[in-house]
């Protein structure tokens, strides 16, 4: 923990739904789209698999930002999973807001075809956090 905080690179951990955002990230790779190397993904079967404890752990252990990326509302492969995700992430954002660490957690909806959107979202988040860290 101590070392990674000293590390100047921005580290972002993203949880990506295997049915949409992860596929979008694969497509982004195939299309040779570039995004900062600090963005690293963990594949989950559905964004609703993301336990807020994971996010807390990632931030405490030194990640500068965490994002959860799932299917657009209504498009969840598991029918309703992403609505639960939204509730949990909203609650967690409220909590981080209370601790004045807002902006470090984001929730994206990225469908399997939206490689460009995936890249734009993560790049924007990266730049935003980098700006704040200066």
């Amino acid at each position: 923990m101590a070392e990674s905080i000293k590390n100047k690179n921005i580290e972002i951990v993203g949880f990506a739904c295997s049915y949409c955002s992860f596929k979008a990230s694969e497509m982004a790779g195939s299309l040779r789209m570039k995004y900062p190397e600090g963005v690293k993904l963990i594949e989950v079967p559905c964004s609703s698999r993301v336990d807020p404890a994971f996010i807390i752990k990632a931030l405490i252990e030194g990640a500068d930002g965490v994002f959860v990326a799932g299917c657009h509302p209504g498009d969840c492969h598991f029918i309703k999973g992403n609505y639960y995700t939204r509730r949990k992430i909203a609650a967690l954002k409220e909590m981080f807001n209370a601790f004045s660490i807002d902006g470090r957690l984001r929730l994206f909806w990225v469908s399997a075809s939206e490689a460009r959107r995936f890249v734009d979202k993560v790049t924007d988040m990266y730049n935003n956090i980098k700006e704040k860290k200066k």
Partner: protein
Amino acid sequence: MKGKELKSRDIDSLFNGFLRDEGSIILGFKKDTITIGHHVFKGNIKDFSLINPFFNANGALYFRRLFSKGSRLLFVLRPCEIRAYVELIKLTQMEREGMIAISVDCPGTESVKETKGMTSLPEDIRDYFKEDTPKRWACINCREKRGVVGDGGIRLDKDFNMWIIPYTEKGEALIATLEGEWTDVPQDMAIKQDKEPEVFKTDLDMLKKDLSKCILCMNCRDMCPVCYCVDCVFNTDEYLPKGDALLNKILRTGEVDLPQGKELFHLIRMYHVSQTCVGCGACEEACPQGIPLTKYFKGISERLQGLFSYMSGRDFNEPIPYTTFKEDELKNAED
């Protein structure tokens, strides 16, 4: 709102009447010449006290995981304790069937840690409501001191007449056993509705500073009425590695402060209880290090519950927000 006026002798007849059935018990407060505290009454309610000005633990803790059917239990406790019961019932940690919960107007409490003894308790109930007694932070900032939760409530009007009011059919059945007419309850009560809590705001450094004293004894968790898991995630090596797992982690990542994972433990626990926390401050009471935990747990949970217009323990039928959703909500949580 209809209810019945409650005289001192009515309390005896109502509760002793309840206890007349074999297997019925009442959890309330018992006061004798030396001590006052939680007590389970059987047979009769000798030395029963409606109010206990000292807080040591949340009474909801004691009957968690009560599943025996057919038992009859009556809880006559503070609003924060009844609210914790309501949450535990939603979480099926209690058998709802034979249970009746009555909340009593609470004047606020003093920490048992702070007080030198519990002698000379006032005889007159109105003396409890004097402003000059020292109060715990949790009580000063309490958002529900009124006996308005559970199956029924015992309330005091502005002239300190006692009223018993039913909120559910169960409460109504109990109160029906009491003689006297159903009458309109006065509007003006001794304890008014509390102001909406201020939006809690702090920062991580403040938390780190406050937690610097933490020894991770986890008493706060163990005494929390709504931390109901039979086996906590923090008992495993997953978040708080010990022994080999700790060594492994150190070899991988380098130095660590010990005890390791204080912020992680408190923040994750804060999230876990965020929708069910009643802000009673039992955690702070249990902390041997005197860490001001209530302000964090109560502050965070009130914000997180506010997000879903939820209030823990307010209503038996309100689902816990993380178990449900609306399709059209929380758009501003999306980036």
